């Protein structure tokens, strides 16, 4: 079973804020070709890294998903938002190679004290 969690923003509190580790939320949709390119890469990374929770929100799935994304400042897809202790600490936008995306995620998580306290990454 994939470790990647697809969810709607009505479950934001449960999935993101109550997580005991850093959370990545990818804002995506199926008509975005860049998102489709990143799909297998993101899914692979989700299998590789244990200490981060990997999730996805489809902004075309519901108006609520879209509004929440807009409120969070998402302006382009795909956006990978990194959240620690319920607070966004960084975003990555666009297409990345697997190596680059992993490296960027680890860099952002490692540099934020709250994330380090929650879950140190190798």
């Amino acid at each position: 079973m994939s470790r990647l969690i697809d969810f709607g923003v009505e479950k934001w509190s449960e999935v993101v804020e109550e997580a005991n580790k850093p959370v990545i939320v990818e804002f995506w949709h199926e008509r975005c070709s860049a998102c489709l390119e990143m799909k297998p890469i993101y899914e692979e990374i989700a299998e590789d890294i244990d200490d981060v929770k990997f999730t996805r929100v489809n902004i075309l799935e519901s108006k609520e998903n879209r509004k929440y994304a807009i409120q969070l400042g998402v302006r382009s897809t795909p956006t990978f938002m990194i959240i620690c202790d319920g607070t966004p600490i960084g975003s990555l936008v666009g297409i990345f190679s697997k190596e680059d995306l992993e490296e960027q995620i680890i860099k952002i998580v490692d540099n934020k004290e709250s994330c380090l306290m929650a879950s140190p990454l190798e």
Partner: protein
Amino acid sequence: MEDFDIWDVIVIGGSPAGLTAGMYTSRARLKTKILTGPTPGGQIALTYRVENYPGFYEPTTGPELTEALMTHAEFFGAEIDRSEASSVEFSKSPYTIHTKDKKLKARTVIIATGSKNKKLGVLGEEKFMGKGVFVCATCDAALYEGLRVVVVGGGDSALQESLDLTRFASEVFIVYRGNDLSGCLCLQERVKENPKIKLISNSIVEEIVGTNYVEYVRIKNQNNGEVDSLETDGVLIAIGWEPNTEIFKGKLKMDANGYIESDEVKTSIPGIFVAGDLIDKEYRQVVTACSTGCKAALEVERYIMKQKQ
């Protein structure tokens, strides 16, 4: 170097022209690699609705059409490689193409790298890219639901993207040079009938302004020189295209605008061919791109046959 290390043809570019060329050459039993880069399909992959590709009378999507073209090429044995060509050496055959981690050799090359969005070149454009400035309505329109978007440009792309945006945005302002829109009449009619779209003619966007995200644009009227501010949540840049030919500079003859000089699909170097929007600057349709891909592939076949004689 062993013969099996050399490709009969490497297609640089996963555009409709490139994928068509690769389908034809692989069907002709030529050992074919198509370097598509991370996002195959070129511009058509960013288009949500495609209703004028022959045979597809029910509208399809750009990604679906791209997938069909790729599948067709692979069906005949073409190898699709998502690497990007980083540099080339065309001084002698077999020709060399470098990617990030590979050095490839080919008897012939078809260049089908297409074009990319032209930039406005104004202050704020780079700063706010992804933070309100965007180039793909198909990708990002949903993030402007209930919001206002300024579209810069008056051609087919700008008009089609504006119509796509109205599915979500509350208002769309099209800012364009000159008195008249330059897009096709069918799109102009739909734009003018759409109550969400407002037109600002004889104008240019001078600056994109904001703090963390786009907040407003400065628009200059070309007739009287007046500059006004227009609050907006997003700015879609749709002012046309420029060729993706940087890696070929100094390797092939080019014109002042960066297009590779060619006699139809033949470049200045035997065995190197070009296809797609790099040679079709006028019509720029998927079907015309595919036809040039086919021509380039047929020329590759002839060239290789001749080399064997």
